[in-house]
């Protein structure tokens, strides 16, 4: 799932990761590098973008491990206002 402006950058709200679990952060970044723009990749790596797995926020995104069927969401900062 790509939320907020990341959806525009990805050109789609969500995308299946066609790779065999388990996947770690390096696998995810590698997959993003193949599928999407460098701008998206930079944004996702940035410290302001948080990550949730199946709706639960991940404290340390670089330490994540994805299992089969997990929903990974990239969350840019909320807009406030």
């Amino acid at each position, binding site marked *: 799932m790509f939320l907020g402006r990341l959806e525009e950058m990805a050109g789609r709200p969500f995308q299946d990761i066609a790779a065999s679990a388990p996947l770690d952060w390096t696998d995810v970044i590698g997959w993003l590098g193949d599928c999407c723009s460098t701008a998206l990749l930079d944004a996702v790596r940035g410290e302001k973008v948080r990550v949730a797995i199946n*709706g639960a926020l991940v404290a340390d995104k670089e330490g994540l491990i994805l299992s089969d069927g997990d929903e990974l969401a990239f*969350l840019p900062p*909320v*807009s406030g206002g």
Partner: protein
Amino acid sequence: MSDVRLLTAPFDPAAELSAFTAAHPQAGGIVSFLGQVREGGGCEALELRHYEPLTLPAMRDLAARVRDRWTLGGLLVIHRSGVMLPAEPIVLVAAAARHRRDAFAAADFAMDHLKSESWFWKREKQGGEWRWIEPREQDFEDIARWA
């Protein structure tokens, strides 16, 4: 009990507030905040997007924190998601309490935290172009008041 709702269609704030008031006849005071899309200023439409597994649970969690902090008879939190036009309601918060001070503080706190911490991403249409709205410094200052 708190009434916390995330809506994807327009709602009628007067009817909601009226029902909330009728449900709390033992409260001496009810404070409400209604946020609406501003007319004028060039905004043609506002879009809020949410992430189902996070947004509503976080709103419920905020409501629980508010109930813990102040003595309330009732708390109402309604937030829209989706595309809204000028003068359409975005958010309604109402707090019913025996003491006026509790109702004011609870509604104020709920709004500061809803605005700055809720999982909503916003974009605005101006001159036919959509643009994303970035976080504002003011929001962090608003929250710091409650530390």
